[in-house]
């Protein structure tokens, strides 16, 4: 049985030499990121090419994607949040396409690496901090001071609020990465059971059971792939809402 974590191994495809002892290379992870970006780019360039009043299939897909993100931003971040639609849309589409690409057998799942999801979360939280301070100045730090609380309680509550804020990028990145990692490992293990049972003599009669479960998990993985991209987008909007209105 192949190791269930072998699929997450990063292999260099083209190496550009070494900088400071670490190898700089175009890896399979980079390849699948590039494929994801190419798919998104093609979908939207090709899909919006005709701009017909009655959309074709691709145009309908592109429009649905845009409208879905735009309404999510409007619901969660409010009307002033609409200027962040490009950011949220890019993040959502990238995560969604990477998640779905990873479900193709043999493909590499970019979002199952903590580095990638942490980088995406860092983009979000840095946007929140930089925009919040640029727009509201010191007033942005009012985010850490809950209203209507006795001043003595603030000694405890302000550190709690700060920790809560710092934990946001961590929960944002760990959630996406852990869901994808766990799902792919579970899938590989149950698929491995099928092969093991087939070659285990009389136990072959049991082999359809893990096969059925594998099929069910694949369906669940599709749900998780879309759901996690959506959750990432919604939480980005909620955090951006804090940058826009720090006074709660």
């Amino acid at each position, binding site marked *: 049985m192949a190791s269930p974590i072998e699929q997450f191994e990063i292999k260099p495809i083209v190496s550009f030499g070494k900088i400071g002892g670490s190898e700089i290379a175009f890896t399979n992870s980079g390849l699948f990121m590039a494929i994801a970006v190419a798919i998104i780019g093609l979908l939207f360039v090709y899909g919006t090419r005709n701009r017909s009043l009655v959309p074709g299939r691709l145009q309908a897909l592109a429009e649905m994607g845009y409208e879905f993100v735009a309404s999510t931003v409007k*619901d969660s971040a409010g009307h002033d949040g609409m200027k962040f639609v490009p950011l949220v849309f890019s993040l959502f589409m990238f995560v969604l396409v990477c998640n779905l690409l990873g479900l193709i057998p043999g493909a590499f799942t970019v979002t199952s690496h903590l580095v990638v999801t942490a980088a995406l979360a860092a983009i979000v939280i840095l946007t929140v901090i930089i925009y919040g301070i640029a727009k509201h100045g010191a007033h942005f730090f009012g985010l850490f001071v809950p209203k209507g609380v006795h001043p003595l309680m603030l000694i405890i509550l302000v550190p709690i609020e700060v920790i809560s804020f710092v934990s946001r990028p961590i929960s944002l990145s760990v959630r996406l990465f852990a869901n994808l990692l766990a799902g792919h490992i579970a899938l590989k293990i149950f698929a491995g059971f099928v092969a093991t049972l087939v070659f285990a003599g009389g136990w072959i009669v049991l082999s359809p059971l893990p096969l059925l479960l594998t099929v069910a998990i694949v369906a669940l993985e599709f749900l998780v792939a879309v759901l996690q991209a959506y959750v990432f987008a919604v939480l980005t909007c909620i955090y951006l809402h804090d940058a826009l209105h720090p006074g709660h």
Partner: protein
Amino acid sequence: MTGQDEKGPGPREPAETDASLESRLKSLDAGLKRVSSQAEAESRRESAKADSSGIGQAMRLSTEFIAGIIVGGGLGWAVDKWFGTAPFGMIVLLMLGFGAGVMNVVRAAGLMKSRADDKSSAQN
């Protein structure tokens, strides 16, 4: 509803005055506004439902809680290392981390927000 309005009398009633046209336009306007606000409220309710459904919510709550504790513990460790206050920085900040984790969960579950909404609606 609006379809009926559009199909309405129109050309079949030649004795139409400007005033009646005006009033009909107004009532149509009001009807449209009502329908669109209803649709908006419905979509908001639906999105809230989708947001709070099943695995997504469960996954979210657990990671929110754990992230709070990890950050509290990490900050405590860093404070102890920098200021040599071991083990008190870790103890205090881990406790605060638990507090932050619980607050994250309460916030993520939308309990705090709904209470704030109740309050503001009661004041209004």
